[in-house]
């Protein structure tokens, strides 16, 4: 019966409306969080810049570059991947882009006979790799929205332990770089050993140290400072990833809201047509029924048509009000 179809359509429209409200709300929340996340990225910059400055000055002071974090091993047989993804989905390709990049890198390592170790941040990363049967060394979750420095510290300690014990000879950091509101890109970068050029530690060692006094010895300060540098770098990656996550979610939710709107317009059109069809059919039935009866009784015909049509119009009017 045509009326049944109309009811189904009306139910679908109202469910789409409800979904649209939710996606719209998520879009607005994500938009406001991007701004905060960007603020945190900016706030973390002075620290890592200063740490880099101090390392450069230390290297100039003859601290030497033989710290384990700076020494490249001769042969790499196992690579650790630090993967930063989100705790939640509904953010377009954000998670998958990072996870696939890492999977490709692991496959490339395997073809060179290298093993892997995974240190994961975010529920989605843990789910992805454990479902596919990868061995996960450590997984952290609960802070992808709003990472703290202490979260970065815990992760960096796990990674540094792996590296300093010699279990892995290289550490790669996979995260999503936040370029602008409209563009983010996946980056897989070498995390350990630290590149001497990158932290300015390749400065000639025979300078007089810029006249610096050191307390304690430069080498000892460097030993304390390098882990901080690694933490600061991981923290920056966590922050950028969280800003990217919010940006990706905002875009995905905006697309979902727009789709819901289109779907609603289409379905409303189909529903109206179905309603008109059912009314037309009803009138046709009445008229043809009346004509059939009218062949033997003309007086009854007029009364019957009037009554039936009034009934029909009443239904029509109430349908309109409902819509």
């Amino acid at each position, binding site marked *: 019966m045509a009326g049944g179809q109309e009811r189904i359509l009306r139910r679908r429209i109202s469910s789409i409306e409800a979904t649209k409200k939710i996606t719209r709300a998520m879009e607005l929340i994500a938009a406001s969080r991007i701004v905060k996340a960007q603020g*945190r990225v900016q*706030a*973390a910059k*002075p*620290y*890592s810049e*200063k*740490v880099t*400055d*101090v390392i450069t*000055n*230390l290297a100039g*002071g003859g601290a030497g570059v033989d710290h384990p974090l700076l020494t490249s091993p001769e042969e790499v047989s196992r690579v650790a991947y630090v993967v930063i993804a989100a705790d939640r989905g509904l953010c377009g390709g954000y998670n998958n882009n990072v996870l696939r990049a890492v999977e490709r890198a692991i496959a490339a390592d395997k073809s060179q006979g290298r093993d892997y170790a995974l240190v994961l941040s975010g529920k989605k990363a843990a789910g992805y790799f454990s479902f596919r049967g990868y061995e996960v060394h450590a997984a952290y979750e609960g802070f992808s929205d709003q990472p*703290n*420095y202490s979260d*970065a*510290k815990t992760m960096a300690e796990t990674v540094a332990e792996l590296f300093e014990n010699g279990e892995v000879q290289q550490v790669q950091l996979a995260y999503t770089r936040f370029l602008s509101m409209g563009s983010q890109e996946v980056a897989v970068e070498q995390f350990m050993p630290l590149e001497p050029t990158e932290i300015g530690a390749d400065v000639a060692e025979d300078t007089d140290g*810029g*006249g*610096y*006094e*050191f*307390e*304690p010895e*430069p080498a*000892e*300060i460097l030993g*304390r*400072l390098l882990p*901080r540098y690694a*933490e*600061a770098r991981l*923290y920056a990656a966590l922050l950028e990833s969280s800003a990217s996550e919010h940006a990706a979610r905002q875009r995905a939710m905006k697309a979902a809201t727009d789709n819901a709107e289109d779907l609603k317009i289409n379905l409303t059109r189909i529903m109206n047509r179905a309603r008109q069809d059912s009314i037309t059919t009803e009138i046709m039935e009445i008229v043809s029924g009346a004509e059939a009866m009218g062949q033997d009784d003309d007086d009854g015909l007029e009364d019957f048509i009037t009554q039936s049509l009034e009934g029909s119009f009443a239904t029509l009017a109430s349908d309109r009000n409902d819509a």
Partner: protein
Amino acid sequence: MQVELVSPEAVLFSGECSQVVTRTVDGDIAFLDNHAPFIGALDIGQTQLWADDGVVSLAINGGFVEVSGNAVTILSDAALAAQDIDVADAQSDLQAAEQALAADSDDAEAAATKKWAETRIQVSEAG
């Protein structure tokens, strides 16, 4: 001289100071204007900044200090200003650490916790 106190999450202090006293792993050190270039690793301890509008006291849980070109930069993982210190929290940390030390006097972690708790109490009393 220009002083900046920077933690990974924010710049905690930035401004002119006449004197800075902090504690490196080798002992307390004070910086006045035009101090010679210096890099040091900080211990757990109290840091005092003589700013224009009074002395600012902070509890610092390790970090680094760099002095160059009449500017002092203090980098710290964890720094707390006197008004941000939760004394009750510090007291309970202190008690827990003392108990741990009573059981094992070589527990380096408990010793550090104790020192950090004592520093926080001291700074909050001074501030």
